[in-house]
């Protein structure tokens, strides 16, 4: 085998005192070869990003490497001074990040931000820098590169911003590109394009790419070799095919098993049940800004959406960001006033209830939110968080707390949680609290808005199982709003696909995935990372 461009030898990175564990990265050895894409996979806290930051010399202040070497070009990067590292950054090693929204300076034009890379290394004249910026933007496939160069980041979409980041990283033809979850914040169709772009550029330039991700679908799509990390330790390395098809380590097997499968098999034949929720011609338009003299900006978030939810059914509403799926959810629970349309819950129109009657009706339709960190009041104990709803509906305090205790058991948490605060729990546990809170009012319908999107894949699998189990036991109807088609495939009986505020297709999950009728649905499904690999393995 040829010499690696970079090799990490027995790297150990210490966390500050009082952290959850002593080492962020613990004795990791990895090699990166020219012309390959090495995927580092792991859940949050696995140390994958820390390893990458250590290579760039960009570790947070209190985190420092305490052992091992990172050998690049025959020397140990950990021995380099800050000035020497500055010279390497951007020129030999480049990096792109997860959040294209925040990774660019909002006050600077795109071309100036790209030109800065040359400026930092005192290359080219200011004029040629600007011309190079346009060339690079052309290379990363931005429509109208000359115009994009003049633009400010907020004028570009998320995918375009990530292309700008890539253009910036490629400016000095680095030997190594480190990509830290570069597609995690993007929509699935955009993700597919960016993955292809990275793959193409890597082949064209023969770069080595270290690609950090939590998503095995992405791994299947892009990786030559894979390294699996857990809690700072390297679990397993190997070629992509070997690790995906024949994982050696138990942790890798567990991770892969937790991935929701697309091939939902034959949809179970359900008995026709009466609808519990009927939505007709729901519309919602947002007006922002505007005043005495200026016209407001109008966005039609939901356009004439009609759907039905049968008792005990799980309906998935899927779509990309801005498709209006969350707006539908919010209109259904009346967190937001729909402009037009009816929402009949067990025959009663929720959309036009007011005051006391709306308050009374709210109990029968409840919501679980996306961010388990932001959706629980940090100053309230878990008991109060769960009991508050029933108490507001007139249940005695004692009884409400007893119910809260039973619900905690039901969602798989210890009863002692009742006296603790949200920050004492992990993301997955908090989401269980969120589910208990939604169940406290004994609703007939639960709306889960991206309820597992913020969770690691193994935790996500547990929460999905819990939801499926509760649904059976309590005979709930569930509306599951998600951008993740894999999750939808696993949990939903029927799926509604939204695009630009409109419902473009509704049908049984099995049909949507295997025989999509709408062109947009097809694009969406084809963009799911790892789909081809999964089909090949299944077939």
């Amino acid at each position, binding site marked *: 085998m040829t010499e690696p461009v970079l090799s990490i030898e027995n790297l150990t990175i210490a966390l500050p005192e009082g952290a959850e564990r002593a080492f962020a990265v613990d004795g990791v050895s990895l090699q990166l070869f020219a012309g390959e894409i090495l995927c580092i996979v792991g859940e949050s806290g696995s140390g994958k990003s820390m390893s990458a930051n250590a290579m*760039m010399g*960009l570790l947070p202040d209190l985190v420092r490497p305490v052992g091992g070497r990172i050998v690049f070009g025959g020397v140990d990067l950990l021995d380099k001074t800050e000035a020497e590292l*500055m*010279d*390497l*950054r*951007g*020129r030999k090693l*480049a*990096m792109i*990040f997860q*959040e294209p929204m*925040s*990774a*660019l*300076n*909002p*006050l*600077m*034009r795109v071309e100036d931000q790209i030109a*800065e*890379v040359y*400026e*930092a*290394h005192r290359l080219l004249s200011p004029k040629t820098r600007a011309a190079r910026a346009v060339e690079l933007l052309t290379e990363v496939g931005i429509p109208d590169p000359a115009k994009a160069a003049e633009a*400010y980041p*907020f*004028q570009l979409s998320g995918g375009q911003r990530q292309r700008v*980041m890539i253009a*910036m*990283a490629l400016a000095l033809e680095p030997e190594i590109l480190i990509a830290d979850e570069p597609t995690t914040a993007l929509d699935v169709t955009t993700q597919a394009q960016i993955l292809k772009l990275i793959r193409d550029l890597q082949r064209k330039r023969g770069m080595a790419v270290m690609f950090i991700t939590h998503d095995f679908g992405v791994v299947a799509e892009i990786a030559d070799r894979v390294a699996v990390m857990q809690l700072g330790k390297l679990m397993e390395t190997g070629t992509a095919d070997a690790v995906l098809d024949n994982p050696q380590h138990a942790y890798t097997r567990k991770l892969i098993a937790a991935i929701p499968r697309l091939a939902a098999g034959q949809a179970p034949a359900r008995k026709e049940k009466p609808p519990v929720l009927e939505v007709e011609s729901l519309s919602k338009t947002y007006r922002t*800004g505007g005043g*005495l*003299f*200026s016209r407001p900006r109008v966005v039609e978030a939901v356009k004439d959406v009609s759907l039905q939810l049968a008792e005990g059914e799980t309906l998935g509403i899927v779509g990309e960001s801005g498709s209006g799926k969350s707006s539908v959810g919010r209109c259904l629970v009346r967190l937001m006033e729909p402009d037009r349309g009816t929402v009949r819950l067990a025959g009663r129109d929720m959309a036009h209830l007011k005051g006391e009657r709306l308050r009374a009706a709210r109990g029968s339709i409840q919501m679980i939110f996306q961010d388990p960190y932001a959706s629980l009041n940090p100053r309230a104990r878990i008991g109060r968080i769960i009991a508050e709803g029933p108490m507001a509906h007139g249940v005695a305090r004692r009884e409400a707390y007893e119910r809260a205790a039973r619900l905690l058991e039901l969602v798989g948490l210890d009863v002692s949680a009742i006296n603790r605060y949200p920050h004492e729990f992990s993301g997955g546990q908090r989401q269980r609290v969120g589910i208990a809170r939604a169940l406290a009012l004994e609703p007939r319908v639960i709306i889960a808005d991206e309820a597992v999107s913020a969770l690691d894949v193994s935790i996500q699998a547990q929460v999905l199982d819990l939801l499926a189990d509760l649904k059976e036991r309590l005979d709930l109807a569930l509306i599951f709003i998600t951008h993740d088609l894999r999750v939808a495939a696993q949990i939903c009986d029927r799926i509604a696909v939204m695009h630009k505020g409109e419902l473009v297709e509704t049908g049984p999950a099995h049909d949507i995935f295997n025989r999509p009728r709408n062109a947009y649905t097809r694009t969406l499904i084809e963009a799911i990372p790892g789909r081809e690999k999964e089909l090949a393995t299944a077939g």
Partner: protein
Amino acid sequence: MLRFILMRLVKAAIILIAILTLNFFLIHAAPGDPAAVLAGEAGAADAQFIEQLRERFGLDKPLLTQLGIYLGGVLQLDLGYSYRQQMPVADLIFARLPATLLLTLTAFVIALVLGTLAGVLASARVGKWSDTVISTLALLFYATPLFWVALMAVLVFSVFLNWLPGFGYETVGANHTGFRRALDIAQHLILPATTLGLFFMAVYMRMTRASMLEVSRLDFVKTARAKGLKPGIIQRRHIFRNAMLPVVTLAGLQAGQLVGGAVLTETVFAWPGIGRLMFEALAQRDYNLLLGIFFVSAAMVLLFNLITDILYRVVDPRIRVAS
């Protein structure tokens, strides 16, 4: 941009009329009768004399008519007549306005420049002793009562050291002209402007420091480091410019209060400004003068709000391009 400014000016005019009307009714709702006060000071407080005074100043007319007359006058830049000082209100205000603006604007610039600089320095050395010294000093100036700092400044620099004049706007009786006069006023300005400036400096210092630290944690700063940029450039170009956005907002809010905001300083340093004029007008129930000062300070607030908004559009492309 021109259209934006025009629209804002029209809005400002409407707001100004609303403020005037509200002030007018508020003042008339307060207890106390200017005619009675005037008559009392003239030593002839009988009912007939008071009635005559009322008639002379138009105070006998219905309130709405009085408001109409007043607003009509304002449109022609006539702010009415001060019964008490026997002079047009506009003359009184414009005689005092330059002194106040000179004092408050100088203090404002001192506060803004020193505060921002101190904030940048402190943020660059966060947790080190220089950060602690800067933060403590700024807090000290903010927490100490303004009039006490002013008195101490007079005591030290004027009485003991005899470096600077301790009160007034210029040397009385010196009759300087031209450059000599400007120099004389500048010398008088140093103590009050610095005292007032140091007080407000703390706010800008803390805001700048916090904002710089917050921005330095954002992703695009990491992007800048990953490019291989030098720390100095990252500080200036990436962190500082973004960190200034909240400081601009704060400065705009404070600049609006420049006209009325220096009563204490003007009093201690015997500075002939609007603050003292307002205080006197309040004590003497000089309705027209009070309304006039309110009008000018409201106009000033609106003007500085407009300037802030224009500035914001210059520094933040998201606002400039989006609208």
